[in-house]
């Protein structure tokens, strides 16, 4: 009984936030679909589910997301190894830069992709523009960093001894990887895959920007139905469909993760130090370089674009960003927008870390009995849901449910960071859980038996091990927040435009100066992200002394 209460206590805050800012709004919107005029009428919803178009849209969503997820895993794995286990020069910088796609506004990347793939572009011959190939490429571009980071963080804290033992038993490096490393990474891989799949399946901007209007995903369909047609029963039907797919996926992922989580042991002091690359690492390094080159191409086009004015190199666009008001091109100086962005991102980051940390702690505590284990597994899955439900549904739902009494939070300045934190939360949880689950529970028991309270035990045992993954997660959350536009755009905000909003405005109007300034602002946003992520990853816990 006491344990059940303690379990609830630990999860109470995240559950409350999830309930108020996610479950309630979604239920509100779906409810409006089922009760169109106050009376229960599921007929409209059922009718929508029978439409062939809906089936087509669902199928398109699932297959593009699956292919993109598989591609991201395949491409991300070598990079995770190279960037987290090998002592490559500049790897910290590269890891920071990998997050850049995350924060780039989709419209900007869309234009960059178009320059590469579109008519007159260097890759136009492939004929990919406006095809599902372009959509999948775009999804991979935005999401491969998730694989590199979550898997990399787990790889970093892996106990190297089982691998060494296997090698001593005669296993080749490839066999060691297949028989020891890969199974140990399975929780992280499954976690990364489910997050990437959810991002891809709800990747709203990418489908629109890179697929033109020919392709619809469930997400774009919900957007259209809700913001344009106000066809709530249809939107509710698709939202439910989305939920079903997501829950099904989470069950599969949980199953994949299970078996192995108990097996993987990690120790703070024994984690492998990055090793100097050897010749046999050449393929991984090569693949990583290729991946980076592929990621860099659109970004490079962007940077070049921001520096070319009338066919000559110039900083004119950057200068224009500094003095915007005289031209009337931007409502606020870019510096202000950047500050707004950073401020929101800091809030979203600490919220995501606090909530995600609590969730991760809750779900990784040793369970007594099957029932408790099931409760924890359910909790784990629950916090993935915000990724799988349309931002539009949540956004409008917030509006109609949080509108009275103590819950009248529609105007709260915390709404935007909270919404972003909920998006970043699964990334935080998926980064922390595999590592926390790998800690020998007896370490905590030893601390407790020496007189350490629960909090102290976490500080002694969990924090040193989880510290690096925690920083990785912080970088993630930060980047997600900086780049998040979809969910935020629907929330009536304080009049404080963030960078993506400013960029969106600039590129949303004709004129070379506007376009150039949008590119320059994107480059600045990307640079700021990389710098912050780098700085965060370099933090050390001062109290940890020898750590």
């Amino acid at each position, binding site marked *: 009984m006491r344990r059940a209460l303690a379990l609830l206590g630990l999860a109470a805050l995240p559950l409350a936030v999830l309930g108020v800012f996610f479950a309630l709004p979604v239920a509100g919107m779906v409810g409006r679909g089922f009760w169109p005029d106050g009376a229960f009428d599921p007929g409209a919803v059922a009718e929508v589910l029978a439409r062939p178009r809906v089936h087509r849209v669902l199928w398109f969503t699932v297959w593009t997301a699956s292919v993109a997820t598989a591609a991201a895993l395949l491409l991300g794995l070598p990079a995770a190894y190279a960037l987290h286990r090998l002592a490559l020069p500049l790897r910290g910088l590269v890891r920071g830069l990998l997050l850049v796609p995350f924060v780039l506004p989709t419209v900007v990347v869309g234009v960059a992709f178009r320059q590469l793939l579109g008519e007159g572009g260097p890759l136009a011959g492939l004929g990919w523009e406006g095809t599902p190939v372009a959509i999948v490429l775009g999804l991979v571009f935005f999401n491969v960093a998730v694989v590199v980071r979550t898997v990399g963080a787990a790889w970093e804290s892996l106990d190297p001894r089982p691998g060494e033992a296997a090698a001593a038993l005669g296993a080749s490096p490839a066999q060691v990887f297949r028989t020891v490393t890969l199974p140990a990474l399975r929780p992280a891989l499954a976690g990364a895959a489910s997050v990437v799949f959810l991002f891809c399946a709800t990747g709203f901007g990418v489908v629109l920007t890179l697929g033109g209007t*020919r392709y619809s995903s469930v997400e774009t369909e919900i957007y259209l139905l809700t*913001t344009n047609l106000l066809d709530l029963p249809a939107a509710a039907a698709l939202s439910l469909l989305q939920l079903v797919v997501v829950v099904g996926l989470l069950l599969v992922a949980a199953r994949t993760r299970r078996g192995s989580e108990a097996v993987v042991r990690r120790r703070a002091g024994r984690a492998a130090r990055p090793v100097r690359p050897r010749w046999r690492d050449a393929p991984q390094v090569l693949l990583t370089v290729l991946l980076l080159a592929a990621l860099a191409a659109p970004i490079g086009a962007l940077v070049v674009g921001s520096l070319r004015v009338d066919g000559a190199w110039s900083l004119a666009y950057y200068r224009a960003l500094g003095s915007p008001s005289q031209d009337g091109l931007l409502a606020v100086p870019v510096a202000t927008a950047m500050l707004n962005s950073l401020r929101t991102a*800091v809030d979203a980051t*600490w919220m995501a870390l606090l909530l995600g940390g609590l969730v991760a702690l809750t779900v990784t505590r040793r369970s007594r009995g099957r029932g408790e284990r099931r409760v924890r597994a359910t909790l784990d899955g629950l916090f993935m849901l915000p990724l799988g439900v349309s931002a539009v549904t949540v956004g409008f739902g917030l*509006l*109609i449910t949080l509108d009275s009494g103590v819950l009248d939070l529609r105007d709260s300045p915390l709404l935007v960071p909270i919404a972003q934190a909920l998006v970043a939360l699964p990334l935080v949880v998926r980064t922390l859980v595999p590592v926390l689950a790998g800690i020998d529970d007896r370490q905590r028991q030893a601390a407790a038996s020496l007189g350490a309270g629960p909090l102290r035990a976490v500080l002694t045992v969990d924090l040193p091990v989880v510290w690096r993954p925690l920083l990785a997660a912080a970088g993630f959350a930060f980047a997600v927040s900086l780049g998040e536009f979809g969910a935020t755009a629907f929330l009536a905000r304080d009049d404080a435009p963030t960078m993506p909003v400013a960029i969106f405005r600039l590129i949303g109007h*004709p004129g070379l100066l506007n*376009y150039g300034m949008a590119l320059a602002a994107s480059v600045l946003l990307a640079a700021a992200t990389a710098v912050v992520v780098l700085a965060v990853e370099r933090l050390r816990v001062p109290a940890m002394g020898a750590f």
Partner: protein
Amino acid sequence: MRTLRTAPTRRRGRTGLAAAAVLALATSCSLVGTGEDDPAAVESTDGGGATSEPGGEVVLLTHDSFALPDQVVADFEAETGIELTIRPGGDAGALTNRLVLSKDNPQGDAVFGIDNTFASRALEEGVLADTDDDAVAWPDGVEQYALPGDDEQRLAPVDNGNVCVNVDTSWFAENGIEEPESLDDLTDPAYEGLFVTPGAATSSPGLAFLLSTVAEYGEDWPTYWEDLVANGAQITSGWTDAYQGSFTQGGGKGQRPIVLSYDSSPAFTVAEGSDESSTRALLDTCFQQVEYAGVLEGAENPDGAAAVVAWLQSPEVQAALPESMYVFPVVDGVELPADWARFAERPTDPYEVDPAEVAANRDDWLREWTDVTTR
């Protein structure tokens, strides 16, 4: 109740916990907030409560493209004692639907940014309050933009702009091809593969263009679109993809010299030192978009809201519109920026579709349009 509020509205959360501390090391802590740096807001808090002046706080709901110079806003606040809170979010469609969904308990007092393609829905759903007949008289010239059927003047026109096909005149000059002039021309094989437009389902100018074709071709519009697609028209999801990505005069150095954009766009394609725009709007292809403001039904501060709506039609705001929001004023006699006056030609007789008809058919049209264009 509202007038008793004392704190400035732009507060940041103070729920900062120790957990923030770690991150606060990395960037200066966010929780200190953007708030108390707005003297106008602070001053005005004690100005409320009087009956002659509207005063108090007014929350203006608007779309993402809303922008006005800080000075214009500050002057208004100082003059009226109103503390204006602007809450942007979503595009015109999202804005309207937000209002519809929360009409029982609106999130603000006034709205700006409902356009003539969504206005009927807002009116039908009873989102907007009646104005007192004698309260506001619209300035000269505004009347012509009034929403047909809105006899109670619930929606006050604030700005307008035309969605028109634009052409890259320099491209046509270089290639020795005659520029197109009409919607019909776009299906001419001479212009095969040269046109790009944002889609009607995903973009508001795209929808306006669809309405142009509805106005021109009536029931036969789907045939026109079939021809358009057959002639190699490219359809993108949004204006940015079309203009910046595919248009020859866009930032992305696209390959298509004909694009759907606005009548104001040519004012932005004047190269430095040149006295000529390199693009031109085809004035026979235009659809007029008008944006409205109004007082919300159930507003906590209707007087203040009415003052804000009137302010949006004032000379100060009207003059600021072109450079802040890239749209034309609705009030007569407002001076335009020099570039606009020279390069932004305006159609004399743009296409129109009765808003009630738009409201009734929007779903069907979009569905059919989607079928035709993705066939």
